């Protein structure tokens, strides 16, 4: 079937079997490998993308279900060479080590700040609780998202 959607603000489309999962459609069909494919069982959250602005696990969404919708992947955050404040926060606070969970963590951070520009540590921890990081112990991820909240309005 033909699947047409908006990815990172641009129209995109391709043929895919109805059983194609969104994560594979993004990575294998469209070549957007910034979205990571992890546990495949909707536990780890590495495959997180924003669907109509909400973080979802793209291993548990059919590409067909995203037809006609807006998808944001990690590739969409940088604008004209300027990183998103959440990306800057992950650099400033060392919010990653191996980087496998990072695209998903950053997107969830972005979605959280879009709804709640000044989240508490507890709210950040709740927001990322569906995503697993095996490197950082989460402390620096929480700090990175807080960093972004504090620098969001100021020029980075």
């Amino acid at each position, binding site marked *: 079937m033909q699947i047409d959607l908006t990815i990172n603000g641009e129209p995109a489309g391709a043929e895919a079997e*109805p059983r194609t999962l969104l994560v594979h459609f993004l990575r294998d069909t469209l070549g957007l490998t910034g979205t990571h494919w992890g546990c495949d069982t909707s536990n780890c959250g590495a495959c997180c993308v924003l669907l109509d602005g909400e*973080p979802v696990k793209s291993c548990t969404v059919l590409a*067909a279900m995203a037809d006609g919708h807006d998808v944001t992947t990690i590739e969409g955050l940088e604008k004209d060479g300027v990183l998103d404040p959440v990306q800057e926060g992950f650099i400033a606070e060392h919010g990653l080590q191996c980087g496998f969970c990072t695209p998903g963590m950053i997107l969830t951070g972005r979605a959280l700040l879009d709804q709640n520009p000044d989240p508490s540590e507890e709210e950040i921890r709740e927001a990322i609780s569906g995503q697993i990081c095996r490197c950082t112990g989460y402390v620096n991820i929480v700090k990175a998202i807080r960093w972004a909240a504090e620098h969001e309005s100021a020029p980075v």
Partner: protein
Amino acid sequence: MQVPAPFDYRRATSVDDAIALLKELGPESRVIAGGHSLLPMMKLRLAAPEHLVDINDLSDLAYVRREGDEIRVGAMTRHRDLLSSTLIAEHFPIVVDAEHVIADPLVRNRGTIGGALCQADPSEDISAVCAALGATCVIQGPRGERVVTMSEFHRGPYETAVEQDELLVEVRLAIRPGAGSAYEKLERRAGDWAVAAAGAALWLEGDTISDGGIALTAVGATEVPSKRAAAALSGKPAGAAAFAEAARIAAEDCEPRDDQRGPADYKRNLAEELTNRALRRAAQRAGATT
């Protein structure tokens, strides 16, 4: 790589369209809502429907509203919207308790109340919540609409009153005076299925229990809700003795199994303890003074 078996995908444009599609496509068709129960099962090939009818476009089934003395929840209401609903929080704190510990925020962004109820997973939380509250379910099909109680709706693991060509469209929760409710769940880690969980609702007249509802999940409850346990509450003073007795009966009416989440005797003990805690918290919320 886990990929579902091939299927044909259709999108319903309305409730009537969904029902017509299910009738046309027959017994090998399945409704997909949030997909966070069905897709994992399809990926493991535990389910292999030939046709999927996607009802995500039915945004008219996504609502929480008050009508008279009822809160009506559309079947496509996502977990995150139940969790953030002020109407729900005001009248049914048990829902908020449960929603906080259902999977994780990403899953709650997709999963729906209707999908969870229709999946009827034996470890799923919303069925116990609705059963404890005495919810009713509105089912629509080619033969019209019918309203069933949770006892009628929930027939057992993975089995509900919704026929193949029918759709759950709404859940109704009655607002009654003197109400308090709570949900207690033990999970091994954030987002996991329950080791055991218990939901309790109480309706008080002064400090006397006029009615109660108890429902358990993940412990092989022999009936959902636990009617025998709830019956033991009626007419008793809202206090430790009545709660302990009801909790004992609720745990008795379970058939927990040994699995990776714990041995059966431990789960039966949990069933009793969690029921007791849920009743105590429900009573506090109902304003009991004892």
